[in-house]
Each structure stands twice: as structure tokens, then as C-alpha cells.
């Protein structure tokens, strides 16, 4: 039953697929429009850097010291200071969301400091907004140190000083963190979603029945259908890389070949996943849902793209192992920002290779050559 693999048949299928892609407005929009939109959304619109946090200040002391403290906050670009008439008014500002945080300086702040009793001021944070709490309290500690020095040469007592420096991303530019991973998100759309529809569409269309009665072999159908999407995937990857480097100015200090290898492996896995879904689902609706659930959702949420894997509960941390995106993100960030070598990324590459071969095997085996329900 095994005939030799005939390239001309596979390429005939590929050529037909190109026609379908070009003539289907939905597919075309997805293929061209979505990557651009994703880059815009994740790259431009969403900004995880917190700046200009509205800070309500209630200074009940009104001394030179207290004003210096306030000034330290004000002169940093993290906070946008406005004055409140009273502590109650300041905390009300936070409640009413006119401010994300409040600095409340009690009366006798300077006096207590100079008397050696230690001055304390209060910072109120809007705890309902978790995206603010972390960074803001971080800023606050940083500023506190600066303020302490400024105010009266009060240094904290430890003989040593802990200074943090953020390696690889000194300014903690969130874009540098997010964008290298964008490749995999865009790829997920193109490779999993579009591919998952293609074979399901033939089933739904009714044309699979006719196709199966011809000498064409399942592998030829798969290879033929994948070829255009593989090409699209590679173009998309190049596109995202180009945008990352030129428009967003993300540095690339690693080896391009290593990144390319990672891209290729991830793409292959995704394509195989798309085909697997496509041969399993008999209609496009189901195929799309499966693609969303098993492909896009994990890629966006569970791969470390935005939310770090390390901060996930144990169960999910283990779960992410089966998602190619998780490994690719490690590779992408490694090559972009850290200049990691192939050896250093050995773990992720091994994982990717295993996932890739496994998925391809599953996809080919699952292709039914008959019409049994």
C-alpha cells in the first residue's frame, strides 16, 4: 500500500493551496493583518513600564526635610506628584482613583528625624491594581534610599551596600522583554490556526472524498499543504525580527544562526500541530476551537511571553514543558539579549526537537485515508 512519495503530486497540492490562500479574504487578512496588529498591540500599545504614576502627597509637616522628601519623588520620572490638603484627602484620592499611591507625611517629621527618633512617612498603594503595586513599591524603596542620603546624610547602617543592576536589560525596558517572544505568537497564529483549517476545510467542502480516491498519498497532501504556510511562517519571523531591531531598537547580541535554528524547529512543531488538529477535526469550526485552545492560548499565556514561568504555580510550571513556545521564548531572549550560544541553550533545543518529532509522527499517523465516520 505504500507508494513512493511523488514530489509533483505534493507540489500540485501546494500550488492549489496557494490559490486558496490568495483567494480567501479571511485567510489573507489573518496572514497579513494579524502579525502587524500583534506587533502594534504588544509592541506599542501595551507598555509594562510604569511611569508617571499619580502620587497624592499630603505634607502635614511643611518643613525643609519634608519638602526634600517630596521633591525626591517629584523629580523622578516614575511619579507625577499633586498635593492633597490633608491625609484623609490623599487617601481619598487613591480610593477615587485620582491617584495610584499616596505619600503621607505626618507633622513633626523633621523634628522626629533630627531628634534621632527616626522619621516615618506613610505610603499608600492602590492594592487593587496589581500591576502597580510591585513596581511602585520597588520604586519607593529605591527612592527611599536616595531620599535618605539627600535629606541628611543618613545612610542605613550596614557597612556594605547592595546595589542592583539589571543585567541584559538595564533599563528594564519591557519591550525588550516582550518583543523577542512576539515571533512565536505570530507564528502560532499563522502556523497553527491557518494550518488547522486547511484539511478540515477539505473535509467540510466535500473535496477530500474525491482527493482520497486519487493516487495521492497522505504524506504528499500534508507536505503540499504545509509548504505555503511554512513559507508564510518564515516570512513572518523575518518580519518580526526586522521590526524588533529597527523600530523597537531591541538589541541582538547573539548568534543569528542559533535563532534561525530555533525558529525553524518551533515553526515545524507548530505546523505539525496544525496538521494534527486539521486531520482530527472534520470541520473548520472545531478545528479553529482546537487551534485556539491548544495553540494560541498556551502560547500567549503559558509560555513566559508576558507572564514569567517562574512565577507560575508548580502545576503550570510543569505543564509549560510541553509547549514549544516556552522553549522558543527562552531561545529568543537568550539570543537577542544574552548572546547565549547553542550549547548554553541546549536544554531548550533538545526539548524543541523532541516536541517537533513527536508532533509530526502523531500528525502523519492520524491522517485517515477513508471515510469511516
Amino acid at each position, binding site marked *: *500500500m505504500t507508494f513512493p512519495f*511523488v514530489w*509533483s*503530486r505534493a*507540489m*500540485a497540492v501546494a*500550488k*492549489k493551496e496557494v*490559490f*486558496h490562500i490568495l*483567494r*480567501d479574504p479571511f485567510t489573507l487578512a489573518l496572514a497579513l493583518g494579524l502579525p502587524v496588529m500583534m506587533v502594534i498591540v504588544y509592541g506599542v500599545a501595551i507598555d509594562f513600564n510604569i511611569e508617571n504614576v499619580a502620587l497624592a502627597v499630603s505634607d502635614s509637616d511643611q518643613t525643609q526635610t519634608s519638602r526634600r522628601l517630596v521633591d525626591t519623588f517629584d523629580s523622578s520620572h516614575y511619579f507625577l506628584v499633586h498635593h492633597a490638603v490633608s491625609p484623609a484627602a490623599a487617601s481619598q484620592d487613591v480610593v477615587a482613583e485620582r491617584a495610584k499611591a499616596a505619600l503621607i507625611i505626618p507633622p513633626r517629621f523633621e523634628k522626629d528625624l533630627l531628634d534621632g527618633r527616626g522619621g516615618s512617612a506613610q505610603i499608600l498603594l492602590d492594592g487593587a491594581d496589581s500591576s502597580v503595586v510591585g513596581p511602585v513599591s520597588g520604586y519607593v524603596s529605591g527612592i527611599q534610599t536616595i531620599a535618605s542620603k539627600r535629606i541628611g546624610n543618613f545612610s542605613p547602617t550596614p557597612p556594605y551596600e547592595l546595589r542592583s543592576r539589571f543585567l541584559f536589560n538595564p533599563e528594564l525596558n519591557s519591550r525588550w522583554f516582550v518583543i523577542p517572544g512576539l515571533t512565536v505568537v505570530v507564528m502560532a497564529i499563522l502556523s497553527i490556526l491557518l494550518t488547522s483549517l486547511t484539511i478540515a476545510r477539505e473535509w467540510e*467542502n*466535500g*473535496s477530500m*472524498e*474525491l482527493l*482520497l*480516491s*486519487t*493516487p*495521492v498519498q497522505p504524506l504528499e497532501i500534508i507536505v503540499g499543504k504545509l509548504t505555503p504556510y511554512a513559507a508564510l511562517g518564515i516570512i513572518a519571523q523575518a518580519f518580526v525580527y526586522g521590526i524588533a531591531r529597527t523600530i523597537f531598537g531591541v538589541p541582538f547580541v547573539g548568534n543569528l544562526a542559533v535563532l534561525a535554528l530555533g525558529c525553524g524547529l518551533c515553526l515545524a512543531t507548530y505546523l505539525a500541530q496544525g496538521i494534527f488538529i486539521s486531520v482530527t477535526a472534520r470541520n473548520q469550526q472545531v478545528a479553529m476551537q482546537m487551534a485556539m485552545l491548544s495553540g494560541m492560548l498556551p502560547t500567549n499565556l503559558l509560555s513566559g511571553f508576558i507572564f514569567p514561568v517562574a512565577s507560575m504555580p508548580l502545576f503550570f510550571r510543569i505543564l509549560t514543558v510541553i509547549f514549544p513556545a516556552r522553549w522558543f521564548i527562552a531561545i529568543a531572549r537568550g539570543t537577542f539579549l544574552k548572546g547565549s550560544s547553542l550549547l548554553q541553550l541546549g536544554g531548550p533545543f533538545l526539548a524543541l526537537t523532541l516536541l517537533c518529532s513527536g508532533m509530526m509522527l502523531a500528525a502523519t499517523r492520524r491522517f485517515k485515508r*477513508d*471515510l*469511516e*465516520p
Partner: protein
Amino acid sequence: MAIDPISIRIRNIKKNFKKTIALDDVSLEFEAGLMHGVIGPEGAGKTTLLRLILGLMRPAAGTVEFFRGGQPVTFEEIRPDIAYMPQQQSLYADLSIDEHLEFFRALYSIPKDVYQTKRQELLQITQLTEFVSRPAGQLSGGMYKKLGLMCALLRSPHALVLDEPTNGVDPISRREFWNMLYRLSDQKILILVSTSYMDEAERCSRVHLIERGKVVASGEPRGLLVREGVKNFDALFMRHAVKDMKPVATL
């Protein structure tokens, strides 16, 4: 074009789908070089039968045997020489007639020169030459079916399996379609056509009547009608169905 005629024999085929019995102990003989009609109403099992012959489904019991020039062969051996036209729409709405022909040419690895001649011939017979660039989705029902037939005939098959090819097509287009099939009869191609139009039964050399998964009658049409003493195939079916159906409601 002398070919070794293909014939097919079906023996004791049984096929079920969950609770329904699609085919119940069906045995039929499809003699070489003739036009065979598989006649029966919807749900009779015609499509299942044809799919079983083409290996698109597997029988629960029974065998499908193929012969070429009288010698037994496997289905895989004759697969390149059998063409199929499924009942439902099975072409691509966004591909033009020419793009369809090109696609099937590649699938069957037909040499370019053979293809050119054949393409010309087929377009002429179907009178579709001026529509070659039109997408299949914009063709009328009759033209769509003709395209399906062209794709099937492209590699000069020795056996043709057509599942209700004229379903829903207007009488004129139906006629034209059957005329095209008749041109093939000279070539001793084995043709299996299923239809629920009783009047098409008489156009075949052999008819095999099926209802609810069972063979009702099989043989040469005229002879069959004479033997059973009925005027047409409607009546023949009704004769056999009478036991299961209730009498017609009287006024």
C-alpha cells in the same frame, strides 16, 4: 483504444452505521464494458456501496473483487485506472476550470502532450471551452457536474464510478451528461452510475435496484420489466415494497 476490460464482483457485503444497516447481504456482478445503473431512492445504500467499491469504506463482512481481462487483480493495481465522481460537491469553488484540470493532471502524473489533447477534447464535448477561466463556484449546476466528469475522464480511465451525477440537475443538462457517458460506451469502459431517477434506469445496459440496503432486482432493464410484468421501475419498486408499506390512504 483497446483496453483490458475491468469487471467487479461484490459478494455478501454487509455494512452498518451504528444502529442502521446500510447494506444487508448485497451480492452483485458488474460485467465489463457495460453501463451499470445502481438505482434506488435516497437512503437505499447506493453511496455506501460505491464508497465500499472504491476502498473509501470497509465492509463489516463480504468481499469486493476486481478483475482485469478476466484475471483477478487488487484494487491498488487498478486504482490509477478508476475515476470517481462523488455525490456531494467535491470541487473547489475558488479554482477555475483550467486550474482544476491542471491539478488533476498533476495528481495523475499525465504527460503534458497527452494532457493537451485530452483537455481540448473534453472541453469540446462539454462545451465549456469559453468558460475555462471561470471559478467553479460560479458555474451552473449542470456545468459544475460536467467539470467533475472532465476531471474524472482526464486520465482516460478504464472504469468510471459516478454517484448520483445528475442529482438536482435540470432535464436538459441531465441529457447532455448522459450523452457524454454514451460516447464512452464505445470504449468498453466499465461505468457504474447511481441514481434515484427511475427513468434513467432504462438508459443503462444493466440495472441493479436497491432499497434499504437490499438488492430488489438485477439484470438487463427491458428483460427485467417484462419478467416482472411491470411498466416501469417505479412499479417494480412498489411491487417489492408493498409488504413493508401501509396501503395508501383512501379519500
